[in-house]
Every structure is written in structure tokens, then in C-alpha cells.
């Protein structure tokens, strides 16, 4: 039985303002979905809400991972349940090396019953594994000794996110604007990394983007358009082609009510 990430009528607000107004989305393991939409449509809100960011308020609806209620879980429990969010803007943690951080993360995610202070995964096994993953991603071994995201270039940050994805082997991964700020070569390397992990682990992937570029490398079977806080169109790759050719104007014309909401949302914080 493959696992399912199921989002039903999800409504999310921030600072008292409703951003997501009833989102429905179902992703099975192994599937690749793309969530597209113009700026301010609520894409990042969806990813933060699913990962459990404390600033986002759940106003209604549900999100389950294989039947478990995600919304009741702490962020770390969601990670242990098999959810992974590749951040658009990963924060830096000075003084904490990539390796030390990931060793903690891997120890917890692979052994969800581990308590604080209990033994970590063996250094030898961990080192072997991280080296091999970094090698696959074309990363220098010294990278593991750098402080997490501290002074990383845009490309290094995204590569580090994919390295974490590879090490944590989640059932579901949300890639939040993983292509933003990257040149075309970096998009390719990062995308290949995602594809390799997804193929190996069977991860279900949700690619959030407002550009088509990354979707030429990570090919979605399902495409959704988020607009004004709702998914207004579901389809296949043909939706990507249409957006590429026509932009979002036809969406605005087709859904005038959501377009009005879009204007009011413009003044709200980005995420």
C-alpha cells in the first residue's frame, strides 16, 4: 500500500488574515505534483502550514499523512512521520556544522522513538553515507564541515536542502521555490538530485514554483494552479505549457472572484 498525503478543505491564516481558503490536494508516494501560481497566491503558506510553522493558524480543514493527523503534530513529529520541506529561504545556524546537524536529524527521523541525549547514528555509517550523497550532488567533502547555511551561496543553500532530502528519505517532500535564485546549471543539478532520491525512495514530491523552468527537469504528472488561496485548476503537464505560453491572465479572467482576493492579499506579508 502506498502512502497518501491528503489535504482537504484546508484553511490557513496568518496575523488574523485568511490566506488559504479551502485547499484540496492528494498526493501518493511516487507521484510528482507541481503547484503553480502567481506571487501572493498562498503557495508558501501551504508549505509552512504543512510543516507546522507556529506563525500559521489553521482555520479549518485537515491534512493527513497516511491517515495520521499532521496538523496535530509538532514540526519534529511531522518530520518523523515522513514529511520534508525544502525551504525557499533556509536559515543559517552559526557554529553548527552541516554534518553535526544532519547526524542529529537523521538519528531522529530514522529512529522516531529516540529521546534527547540518546545515542546518535554511528559516526562511521553516517560519514560514509553523507560522503556518498554529497558525491552524487557534486559537493565537496569539506562542505559537511561548514556551518549550516552560514555564508552559503543561493546554489549551495538549495543543494544543502537536497542533501538533507537525500539523507532523510521522506515519504513526501515539498520543494518550496527550490529553483528561485538559481542559474540554469544549478537548477539542473538540484533537480537531478531530487529525481534520484524520489526514484530510489519512492518519495511523493510537491514542487512549488511560479516558473516552468524547474519542471523541465522534475516532470510532474499532476499540475495544480493555486490562485487567491484556492486550487482553481487541476490538470496534467499541459497546464504548464499553457502557463508558459499565456501567463496567468487567463486564470484571472476565468476566476474573477479569486482575482479580487488576490488584490487584497497583495498587501499581506509574503509568508
Amino acid at each position: 500500500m502506498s502512502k497518501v498525503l491528503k489535504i482537504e478543505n484546508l484553511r490557513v491564516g496568518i496575523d488574523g488574515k485568511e490566506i488559504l481558503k479551502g485547499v484540496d490536494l492528494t498526493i501518493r508516494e511516487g507521484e510528482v505534483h507541481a503547484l503553480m501560481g502567481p506571487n501572493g497566491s498562498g503557495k508558501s503558506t501551504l508549505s509552512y502550514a504543512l510543516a507546522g510553522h507556529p506563525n500559521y493558524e489553521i482555520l479549518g480543514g485537515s491534512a493527513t499523512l497516511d491517515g495520521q493527523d499532521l496538523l496535530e503534530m509538532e514540526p519534529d513529529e511531522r518530520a518523523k512521520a515522513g514529511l520534508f520541506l525544502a525551504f525557499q529561504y533556509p536559515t543559517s545556524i552559526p557554529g553548527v556544522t552541516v554534518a553535526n546537524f544532519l547526524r542529529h536529524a537523521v538519528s531522529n527521523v530514522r529512529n522516531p522513538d529516540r529521546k534527547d541525549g540518546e545515542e546518535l547514528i554511528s559516526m562511521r555509517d553516517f560519514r560514509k553515507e553523507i560522503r556518498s550523497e554529497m558525491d552524487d550532488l557534486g559537493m565537496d567533502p569539506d562542505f559537511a564541515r561548514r556551518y549550516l547555511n552560514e555564508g552559503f551561496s543561493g546554489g549551495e543553500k538549495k543543494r544543502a536542502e537536497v542533501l538533507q532530502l537525500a539523507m532523510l528519505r521522506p515519504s513526501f517532500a515539498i520543494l518550496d521555490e527550490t529553483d528561485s535564485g538559481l542559474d540554469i546549471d544549478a537548477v539542473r543539478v538540484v533537480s537531478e538530485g531530487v529525481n534520484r532520491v524520489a526514484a530510489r525512495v519512492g518519495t511523493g514530491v510537491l514542487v512549488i514554483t511560479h516558473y516552468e523552468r524547474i519542471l523541465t527537469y522534475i516532470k510532474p504528472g499532476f499540475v495544480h494552479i493555486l490562485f487567491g488561496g484556492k486550487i482553481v485548476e487541476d490538470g496534467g503537464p499541459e497546464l504548464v505549457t499553457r502557463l508558459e505560453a499565456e501567463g496567468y491572465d487567463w486564470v484571472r479572467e476565468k476566476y474573477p472572484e479569486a482575482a479580487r482576493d488576490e488584490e487584497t492579499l497583495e498587501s499581506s506579508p509574503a509568508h
Partner: protein
Amino acid sequence: MATDLNAQVEGIKDEYKYGFHDSEANYSFKSGKGLTRETVEQISEMKSEPGWMRDIRLKALEVFWSKPNPTWGGELSELNYNDIRYFMRAADRQGKTWDDVPAEIKNTFDKLGIPEAERKFLAGVGAQYDSEVVYHSLRDDLQKKGVIFTDMDTALREHPDLVREYFGTIIPTHDNKFAALNSAVWSGGSFVYVPAGVKVDIPLQAYFRINAENMGQFERTLILVEEGAQVHYVEGCTAPIYTSESLHSAVVEVLVKKGGRCRYTTIQNWANNIYNLVTKRAVAQEDALMEWVDGNLGSRLTMKYPAVYMTGKGARGEILSIAFAGKGQHQDAGGKVVHAAPYTSSRIISKSISKNGGRASYRGLLKVADGAKGSRSNVVCDALILDPASRSDTYPYIEIDEDDVKIGHEASVSKIGEEQLFYLRSRGLSEGEAATLIVAGFIEPLVKELPMEYAVEMNKLIQLQMEGSVG
């Protein structure tokens, strides 16, 4: 998350695993509480000291009485000098081997891991228990090279000329109230002498343990590093938890002669009922290097500002300070560098963490004297505040009397970031583990300056301070 984090921080227990104590029944001598001229005379007599030392003590006592408590720094109004015992003898003689040490005391040091550390990675060990040093050792090869590492009382008996020449020259009795107090009632502490050109390549360690209640521990340490010599001295300290206060007031004097190097590392982990009021000062002569690595995790109140006076051309001073203030603690720490010669350079790096209502202050003095041309100094102090109940202050004092200098000063205060916590938690780390990792990262730049064994210990202590954050 703000409220979650508050709740978490509220829940942090200040676990202290060194809080056990031994019975005081076997002590061979306890002074009465309070400080009189007779107490001081009695200490001197019990140690069979020469008259000149007795005179130093008695004069110092007058200075102590004449000076008021400092009005800056921490809250001293609850410290009652009349409630303290100023001298206690727990063992009648000092052990050369651990088997010579009374079983109960040896057992305490076993629990603290001292004999084990000695076997593994130390060149010499001194262990002080309340007023006196109960065990001392130094590796044979270093003894043969003329290195002296003993307790101060023994040094006064066996090397009176050296002690008399330098005692109180770097920190005079009248320097401050606590230096005067120490000079009056000092007992124990280390005496280190490293002959010219001798390099002591692995650390000497002194361990200070307060066992008795209402105890005053006043160790007096003097380190003399001759020309081109090198030494690394490490001290650790713990005490049982009592409901009433104890006082630890040390004086540490260090002289590093031309081209010599001294590193002095402290891992202070007193129980939270100890007033830790310490004066530490080093003189670095021409091209000498003095480094203070000062970790303050314990005590109720610490007031300590290790100093380097650079008196010779090209001398260097470095002070790395880590302070962790938890519930009911005030760490008033920092450093003092005085450039009194040309082309001297100094660096102060201070990192403080406050949590659960704790208060950490950085207090620093940078002074460049007229004529100290071409000198440079860099001061960086960073504070991390873990919750809204906690506090951090910075008091940097800068006095520059020379134009041809390069001075840098940076200070930052940050709160533990919600985004950092969320990022780590989204990777499966619990809130407590995430906070611990962030704190460990914050002090990493200093911890990596410690020898491996101490870096491990420091990380463990930090972990312990952060523990209990969940559930």
C-alpha cells in the same frame, strides 16, 4: 511559538550533578564563623608561616575592612562576611598518591573524574578540598627539568624567596576589596614555575572543590613563566548545593617573561549558592603571550575580569570568555587589557548566554597608554538571550591615550531565533535538542580553542544546563 518557547524555558531545570557533599565530621580543624584578627593569626600560625607573610595578611585585613563593597557589578548585599568560615582543614597531610588521600575525599575526586583525567591527559594535578590542597603530583620528567608545580602553602615553605619576590606584585593587596580579603586569609592555590626555555606540552590541572557549608575558599595562585617557556594551566571547580551561601574569592597572579607563553583555562561550575569573586591578572613582557580562556557556568554571582597587562614591546594578550547564566545566576564577566608598551596586541572575545531569568553581563576595559604606539586591539562580545525573562548587559570601557593604534569593537545581542528553531525542528529535532544545538553553535568558536577533553566537557556542561527542557 513564542509562548511554547516560554513554557519550555520555564521548564528548564538547573540540573547540577556535582551537588553531593561529604560529611564534615572528620575535619581536623574548622575556624569559627566570621573574620577577626585572631582568625588571620590562627591561619598563619597553623601553617607555620614566616613573619613577613603574617604581616602581609594582617595589613590586608585592615584594607579589606576599610574598603566598602563595590557598588557596581552584582548584588552583594546578601553576602554576610560574618556567616562564613574562613579556614577548614579536612586532611592532616597532602597525598603524593591518591591512596594517601582520606577515602571519602578521594571518593569525591573519583566522582569528579580527576584521577582518571590525570592518567589520561595531564602532566600534573593539584586537588584542593575546602581550604587546602589534599593531593599534588607532577610528571617526573618535568620535575627533572626544574618545573615546579605545587600548592601555594608548600611553595611558601620550600621556595620562600620566589614567593616573597613575586607575591602580591601583580595584584597588590589594596587593588580591590576581594584581593585584600584573599591576601588576608589565603590558603591553598597553585604555585607554578617554568624555567627558561622549558615547554610543558600537556596541561597542568588544578581542581577546586568546596565541600563544607558556609565555606570561604581563598586559593592563591602564582604562575611564573620564565623567558621562552610555555605552560597551559587548567582549573575546574564545583561545590555541593546548600541553601546558604558560600564564598570563593581567589587571587591569581601570572607573570610571563620575554617570549614566554601561558594559557590559563578555567571551567567554573560552582553550585548556585556560591559567590565567586575573583581577581585574575597577568603581566606579559616583551613578545610574551598570555591567554585566558574563561568559562563560567556555575555560581550565584560571578564577578571576574581576567586581565593582561602588556608591559613589553610586542606582547600579546588574549581573553576568551564564555558565560552561561541560568535561573538565579548573575555572571558579571569579561576582561581587561592594558597596552603599556608599543606594538602590543590584544583580543577579547566574549560570548554570553542567559536563560530562565539569568543575567549575563560583559564588563570590559581596554586601555592603551600614551606611547604604546602601533598597538592593536579587537573586542567582540556577543550575547544570546533564550527567553524574555533573561537579561544581558554590556559595559565596555575604553581609554585610549595614544593616537597610533588600531581598535575594533563589536557587540551583538540576539534572541534565539524562532526561524532557527523551526528549521531544526522541521528536520526532526525536538525543541530542546534544537535549542541546545543552537547554543552549542553559538559558543563553538570558543569551545574549539579548548583542548579536546575540555571541549567535550564544556559541551557536556552546556548540554546539562539546557537539559530538562522537554517533559
